[in-house]
């Protein structure tokens, strides 16, 4: 009487175990395949990240042709103003291109034509000393915890009068937008009382990198001509440091070219990161040329059949006076990239 139930239990067990094994094997096969796919996609993802760096590098070249240059030279800048609230902000100067549009001298130089950095015995390059010919810079990319001048994305409510002479009118008594940093806004009595430190906190942002955005991609620029640059686009963990620089000291500062501490002072770790990195080399040329103002130079819809010197403002866009307007047609006031060339082989300097 006891044999048959045990046999049935055994059969059920075999069935359940078999089906479970089947399901497990299916799941494992599926997961293994998906993991394999995901691992193979990492290469594609890194390649994409490296390519994004080409756009970032070109944007830097374009904007730095005219913007962002301090009057003080590198290494002589005032400490971050967040630590010195009383320090005056370092003025930015407008420049006129990697090749100055006024006289063709190497730039960038300031509005009065003087050097951004005057020639001195320790700075023989003069006006190109910020980015001298035959020098390179490293640009590790990450997202800051809070960028400069960050504002809150949520709207700030302002009450609307429900009665009285102002009925229906919004009382714009709460500043909108609000800064992401504190300005000691009191919504109760509608006041803001920022301190000097609050202002600099807002102005400077929080420069700390967001951890999850680090060690993903970087680019390097090597100025090989007045307006030509070798762009190295990388995706990986080297932060743009070069393997061949591990034991090389900077001729100016005497410090190692590679910050060993970032890699645990371990050459093998750095070499492993280097080996698994994707790098592309490009060469690009900057041009001072912006888009031609040809479309807006004629008002051909006045209904008068003659020519006019009427010129629409560059950002007025479409000339349909009686109809819609659109955004400006991309007059890029920081120049254009004339051409981009992927280099077939790794250049000596980058």
């Amino acid at each position: 009487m006891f044999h048959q139930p045990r046999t049935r239990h055994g059969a059920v067990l075999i069935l359940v175990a078999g089906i479970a094994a089947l399901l497990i094997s299916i799941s494992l096969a599926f997961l293994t395949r998906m993991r394999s796919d995901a691992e193979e996609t990492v290469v594609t993802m890194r390649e994409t990240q490296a390519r994004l760096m080409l756009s970032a590098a070109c944007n830097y070249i374009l904007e730095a042709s005219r913007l962002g240059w301090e009057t003080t030279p590198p290494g002589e800048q005032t400490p971050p103003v967040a630590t010195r609230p009383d320090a005056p902000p370092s003025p930015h100067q407008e420049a006129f291109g990697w090749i100055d549009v006024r006289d063709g001298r190497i730039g960038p130089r300031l509005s009065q034509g003087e050097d951004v950095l005057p020639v001195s015995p320790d700075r023989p390059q003069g006006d190109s000393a910020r980015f001298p010919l035959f020098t390179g810079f490293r640009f590790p990319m990450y997202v800051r915890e809070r960028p400069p001048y960050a504002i809150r994305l949520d709207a700030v409510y302002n009450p609307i009068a429900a009665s009285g002479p102002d009925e229906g009118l919004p009382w714009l008594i709460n500043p909108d937008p609000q800064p992401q940093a504190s300005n000691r806004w009191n919504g109760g009595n509608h006041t803001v009382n920022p301190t000097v430190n609050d202002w600099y906190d807002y102005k400077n942002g929080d420069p700390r990198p967001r951890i999850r955005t680090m060690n993903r991609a970087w680019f390097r620029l090597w100025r090989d001509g007045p307006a030509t640059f070798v762009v190295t686009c990388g995706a990986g963990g080297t932060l743009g440091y070069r393997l061949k620089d591990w034991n090389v000291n900077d001729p100016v500062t005497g410090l190692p070219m590679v910050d060993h501490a970032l890699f645990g002072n371990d050459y093998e770790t750095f070499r492993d990161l280097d080996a698994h990195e994707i790098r592309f080399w490009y060469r690009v040329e900057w041009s001072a040329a912006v888009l031609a103002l040809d479309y807006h130079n004629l008002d051909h819809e006045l209904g008068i059949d003659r020519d006019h010197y009427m010129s629409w403002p560059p950002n007025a866009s479409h000339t349909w006076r009686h109809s819609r307007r659109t955004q400006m047609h991309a007059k890029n006031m920081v120049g254009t990239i004339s051409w981009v060339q992927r280099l077939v082989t790794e250049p000596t300097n980058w």
Partner: protein
Amino acid sequence: MPSHRQPFQYRRGGFTLLEVLIATAMGVVIIGTAFAAFRVASQTVTIANRLSLENAMMRAGFSKAQEELDFWQSYDDPDVTQGEKLRATLAPASLQGAHGLIFAPMATLLPPPAASTDTFEGAQGWDDRAWLAHDSRSWYRGNMAEKYDTALIFGRYAIFASADVGTTAFYSGASTAAVGSPPAVNPPVAPPVVPPIPDYSGVAVPHHWHDRQLSAFLRNTSPYMLSEYLPANTIYCFAETFSNGGTDRGGIPLMSIQPGDENSFCNQDGGQKNARGKYRQTYRTTWSVPPNDPQVQPGGPADPTIFSERWKSQRRYFETGYASTPESINDFVQVTTITTPVLDVAPTHWPRVTLSVNRFIKNARSIALFRLRLSSPVTGSVYEVCFTGFGTTLRGARQQRYYDPSDASSADAAGRRRGWASWDDPIPGQTPAAIPDPTLDTPRL
């Protein structure tokens, strides 16, 4: 007792018909369930494999697209015999130099430098150090507001700049022949009144370089190449010696200002005859790079007739803007698309992935548009991923390609070495010194 038990034990060892039927039924159910389970498992694994294969194929297609983005090998592949499909040039006597496709060597396109005129303003040929904003040679000196048939109401700009050195002749007013005709406008307008025009003969024209460059580029290259080589703010207009039917009275060639059909340089946006830049020329229409069929026939020289047709298609514009129609969009897609399989050889049950690329300029922007299309022969499903990319431009692609007609070290039938040009950037004085290979853009080969 044993005799009574034996039959009983014997019966216990067998099966009744009912037991057999039940056991059979249960067996069928169990086997069927197991079979179904294994079948599902098998299908699951098969589908997982198929999806994985599709993913792998799409990744391969994406990688191929990135390579294509940077190396333009669908248009010109220096690694493959007969891969240089867009290098032909044609030099009719009526033009200054040759006109050619987008990978024609620059030395064969622009007139070679002439010693007697190779001066600051008289220089000609391609110079990659020129076209700088501060260089007065590169400034346009015409009148952008001039339109329709000019009556010289804004002056005669050919006295300031001309493509012809020392031989510029002006319209003297002696000819009464109509010069062009006003384009159709709504409402119709009367032709402009042409006042008597004084004779400017004897005027020394001071500027030539800009107009010579424009003339050579406009006549000898395609619009796509023109727009990639000249600065973004270039006005595609110049002046030259007056010719009845060839220029307006101001000496401006009609080809650079007169709206025409799709074989013309100017599109019909606005119906106006005026100087234009890149935006105006690509606002209503698109400049593209039609690949067409290989022009250089295997084992034979270029066929000028075929090339002439291909050259037209290189220069033509495509209606893709506000005046476009489904037919014109189809025309653009069909003529300008290059489609290649991601894998040349693959098992028949594998998904088929093709990569299409269109390169064109629209609204002054250079665009490389890719379409990755996957079709499954198993399920019949088709899906497509479209994306654009930012990579090597045409000029960069030309600088990638080795070209030296005098190099016979590894020459092909045409007497030149194939392959890619090497480039390096050692600091001056650093050894070994960099000796960049000559490329399609090397000006004076």
